[in-house]
């Protein structure tokens, strides 16, 4: 069986950044497995700009952002296989992949980095009543058909969900001559960035209807229209508020789900809120030597943070394989769980190793609702060790706190770290 120090599953933004960072950290034998026919992942179809402000201090389009990381991988001569789908990963890091040239192959990895990304929630998951005609697309599928394949998916469009992909597609389709009639959002707030609401909807006079959803799909062969209704506080449609919109296309931008079939297959413990693996501050899952980063770990808003997170996974995976080659095994250390409470939905990582952690660990999380003038508090057991006032917190914006190793010196018997929102 062929052996590689680090096998990275996925050649999108997470996988590329992890690969570059792992090489920088000294790992020599790295292999990237990518299912598409090019590197870069979803960025290839995200032709709009707004990427890279944090990483490169300039605004890039998706393909430009991807190209910078692809260049790093090419310069470092890190090998990758395209058109290669991973069929299975085992807890002891055997990776089985399939491709045209080699057929079915199993290789042994010293460390595995999970960087498979996420997929869109389909219509079926929403149980929207009506027929099942052509013309209903998840926003990303429509984006691919337009931006990569060069096809028009429709002329009159309604968009359900105001996630960023939906907003971007509203502008994209308008620019290409389609009429986007309305964007309906189930929640009383948009999950998308303010800038996208202004520059993708307001600029083109596209109405955004908050607390509205599609309650009926019309048309048997191709979509002919949708009925939209207002919803109450329990997200139940309010009778009498129905409004019919004729359209031939319905785009769905109703959420992203990390793609963790392989992780589950390896028996890795998963987090119910993120739908990604539980990880410690090294982004290592509970399967030794298997790391996770990017949208497979939790869904991000900004690719810059994906790259940062993935670089950390790459460094740690490199450290793991380099250490494993020496006789001394990994340090055990005190592991403390991170708990998300009172308006904080989850944290990544979920576990902090007080002894082996870096000097500073970034903990990323999302809140459950829109909150104004709240504190983000950190507790070590029952002691509030920090608070930070935020004018506004929204589920669509990932938040973070940084925990310093030095701050734990006074807590030798720490049992739990809590991150929560508080009014005071």
């Amino acid at each position, binding site marked *: 069986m062929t052996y590689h120090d680090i096998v990275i599953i996925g050649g999108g933004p997470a996988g590329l950044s992890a690969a570059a960072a792992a090489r920088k950290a000294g790992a020599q034998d790295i292999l990237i497995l990518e299912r598409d026919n090019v590197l870069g992942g979803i960025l*290839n179809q995200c*032709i*709009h*700009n707004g990427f890279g402000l944090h990483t490169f201090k300039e*605004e*890039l*389009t*998706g*393909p*430009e952002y991807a*190209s910078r990381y692809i260049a790093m991988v090419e310069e470092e001569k890190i090998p990758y296989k395209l058109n290669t789908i991973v069929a299975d990963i085992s807890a002891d890091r055997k990776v089985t992949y399939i491709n045209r040239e080699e057929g079915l192959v199993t290789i042994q990895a010293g460390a595995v980095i999970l960087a498979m990304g996420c997929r869109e929630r389909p219509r079926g998951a929403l149980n929207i009543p009506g027929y099942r005609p052509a013309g209903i697309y998840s926003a990303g599928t429509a984006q691919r058909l*337009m*931006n*990569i*394949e*060069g096809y028009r998916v429709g002329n009159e469009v309604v968009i359900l969900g105001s996630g960023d992909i939906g907003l971007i597609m509203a502008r*994209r389709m308008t*620019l*290409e*001559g389609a009429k986007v009639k309305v964007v309906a959002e189930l929640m009383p707030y948009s999950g998308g*960035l*303010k*800038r996208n*609401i*202004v*520059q993708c909807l*307001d*600029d083109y006079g596209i109405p955004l209807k908050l607390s509205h959803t599609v309650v009926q799909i019309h048309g048997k062969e191709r979509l002919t229209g949708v009925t939209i209704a207002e919803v109450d506080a329990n997200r139940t449609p309010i009778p009498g508020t129905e409004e019919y919109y004729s359209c031939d296309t319905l785009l769905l931008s109703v959420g992203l789900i990390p793609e963790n079939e392989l992780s589950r297959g390896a028996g890795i413990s998963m987090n119910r809120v993120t739908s990604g693996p539980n990880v410690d501050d090294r982004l290592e899952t509970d399967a030794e030597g298997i790391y996770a980063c990017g949208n497979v770990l939790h869904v991000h808003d900004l690719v810059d943070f994906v790259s940062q997170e993935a670089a950390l996974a790459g460094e740690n995976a490199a450290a793991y394989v380099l250490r494993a080659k020496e006789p001394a095994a990994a340090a055990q250390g005190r592991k403390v769980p991170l708990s998300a409470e009172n308006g904080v939905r989850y944290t990544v990582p979920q576990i902090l190793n007080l002894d082996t952690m870096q000097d500073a660990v970034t903990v990323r999380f999302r809140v459950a609702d829109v909150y104004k003038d709240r504190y983000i508090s950190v507790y070590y057991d029952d002691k509030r060790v920090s608070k930070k006032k935020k*004018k*506004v*917190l*929204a589920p*669509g*914006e990932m938040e973070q706190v940084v925990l310093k190793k030095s701050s734990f010196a006074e807590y030798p018997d720490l049992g739990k770290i809590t991150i929560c929102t508080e009014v005071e």
Partner: protein
Amino acid sequence: METRNLICIGCPLGCPLTVTMDGEKIEVTGNTCPRGADYAKKEVLSPTRIVTSSIRVTGGRIARVSVKTKSDIPKAKIFEVMAEIRARKAEAPVRMGQVLIENCAGTGVDIIATKTVEVA
């Protein structure tokens, strides 16, 4: 005197801004920070946008090459720029950064490729 209502895009707060224009004098209210005022002034005086789209490629590994305006263009020119972009065809290979349209729609801004498309 003219007033316009805007939503600030500086941060998730999304402050509702009111801009009052009286000749040369511009007053912004509703902002929580100076960035809001700057944004509002720019938005009423000379709003600009980067336009991204794609251009048909013949003989390439993919059917279209993504493009952008090299810098931002006046917002009012978006559809004129789009019309030129849509009418254009490129031939593979196309290199990222390559100028595909010079001085698009008289804006003085070039349209450049944002990805490389190799020959099929």
